[in-house]
């Protein structure tokens, strides 16, 4: 049973890979830097804030925003690459 063309299947593969990559960054900045490695990171400082604490209250949110922006740009690129952008 083939519903999608080869081109569309390749597109979906890249989307999945791209999504998985971005989600690992999502996990690392919040659960990683903000929780699991907080105590370790707290020996370093950003300005006057301990780094782990800063990630939990500020940094993670900024990175979340960057992740979504990269996702939007990346998806536009993938749609174009596989010729799916003007349907």
């Amino acid at each position, binding site marked *: *049973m083939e*519903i*999608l063309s080869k081109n*569309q299947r390749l*597109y*979906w593969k890249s*989307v*999945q890979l791209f*999504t998985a990559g*971005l*989600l690992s960054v*999502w996990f690392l900045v*919040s*659960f990683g830097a*903000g*929780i*699991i490695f*907080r105590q370790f990171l*707290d020996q370093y*400082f*950003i*300005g*006057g*804030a*301990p780094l782990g*604490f*800063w990630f*939990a*209250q*500020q940094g*993670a*949110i*900024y990175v*979340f*925003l960057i*992740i*979504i*922006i990269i*996702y*939007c740009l990346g*998806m*536009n690129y993938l*749609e174009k690459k596989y010729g*799916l*952008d003007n*349907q």
Partner: protein
Amino acid sequence: MSEQFWTYLFVSLTFGIYILIAFWARASSTKEFYVAGHDVPPILNGMATAADWMSAASFLSMAGLIAFLGYGGSVYLMGWTGGYVLLALLLAPFLREFGKFTVPDFVGERYYSKIARVIAVVCALMVSFTYIAGQMKGVGVAFSSFLGVPFNVGIFIGGLIVFIYAVLGGMKGVTYTQVAQYVVLIFAYTVPAIFISIIVTNNPIPQLGFIGNIAGSDVPMLSKLNSVVTELGFKEYTSTTKSNIDIFCITAALMFGTAGLPHVIIRFFTVKSAKAARKSAGWALMFIALLYTVAPAVGAFARMNFIDTVNEATYIGNSENFEERRSEILSEGGKPIPGWYKDWENTGLLDFNDLNQDGIIQYRGPDSKDNIKNEIVPNRDIFVLANPQIANLPHWVIGLVVAGGLAAALSTAAGLLMVISSAISHDLLKNTFYPNMSERSELLIARTSAFLAILLSAFIGAFASSLPFVAQVVAFAFGIAAASLFPVVVLGIFWKRMNKEGAIVSMLTGLITTVGYICHFKFMGGVEAGWWFGISPEGIGFIFMIVAVFTGMIVALLSPAPPIEIQKLVENIRIPGQRRT
């Protein structure tokens, strides 16, 4: 001019704007009523989503909560923003590509089952009703504390306003009023924050003041705060007493819950395409982050300021002339309580109990070093509310803050109403019981159910103070959304093999386990020592979400694959432009 005058002025002005918008954006079809005609521009939908999302609790309570919890408050900051990454990457664009009106719409069609649809309706209604009651209560509190209007009358006025624009305008009216409400609330939040930041750190940008030094010194604000609070016997501000596993689970439950909340998901049905849905999720997070990165700064500044001005201050009773007594204390070289303290004392948000009878307020933590007992309990809402006065801002700013708090409560309530009304008229009546219903009658029923839902939630809100569950809404709403709705929606998109049997078992597993755990530990006398793996009821939704995913997948693999049309549907929502609606 008095504070009350300005508060009346701002509240009636903003309410007038909301009603005008409602008349301008009336809905004339079910498509407009449910999804604002699918043509809201991404940036406006981003603003509307932000207002929809940020409730009375985000606006009034979050900064104060963080002020008391310190690092522990991070669960809300990460949890309530990180969910947008999941929404943008895993749900919003695909559900928009699917192109229908509601979350149960997707569940019902993707799992070719009326039973699945009805279970999804039950989940959506449970989440929305618990959540909306808290908003109505917030509206009542705002009215009774600032406008001198009785609590129940306040709820009635708030309900009436929401009624006008939600029932008339449907999703279209709600969307455009939410845009206006976002502007009001973000302005009301950031203006006092900027001035507080200047006072404490000399930096006008709160996010930078947060990591900067105390004004006029080279000591970082957070180090100072850490040493001050530990001196008083509290835990270090940037640290926590909670276990890492509990912090992890609560954050995760809030994130996955956010991504599974129906009133957030439906906002992404209102834009034109999957591409617009992605973009709009980015805008939404940006508008939310504006408040969420300021809140921890406000929290830290407020805690600092509170200790500076209230701890060891000489109390001035109601029988004394405040100004006279104040200058008298100052001339004796003492520290009188600040002016804002007196203004807020009567609202019951500050509770001073002079245990050692020395007429001085002592603020102490549980590990107090000088063995002096704590004498004051500030309500967490006080910090945002008193900010304008602490910063010596003009009276009209207070009016603005009250209007902002009301905007936050009303916008969230309206978004929830849309979920409730569409779940009843569209999912239950039209798609489950009376498929032949005409569009006109569906629209009429949608309006009627929105009306009944307002009545019911106003009623729950009015009795909220005597109902224990309203305070626990966070655990319930997010736990249920994470454990019952999130798994079936994401599996429905990313795993073609997921079938009807798996979906039904998965939703029921998530729903029953989460509700059972929360009820046991919140209302049926369960104690902290009994928590599984030390996980609090707020975080358990994450664990049961994983359980729900696996039981659902196992059941799906043991039963027949979904029909070929359904597999085709799944393939089509993954590829842009395959579905036309």
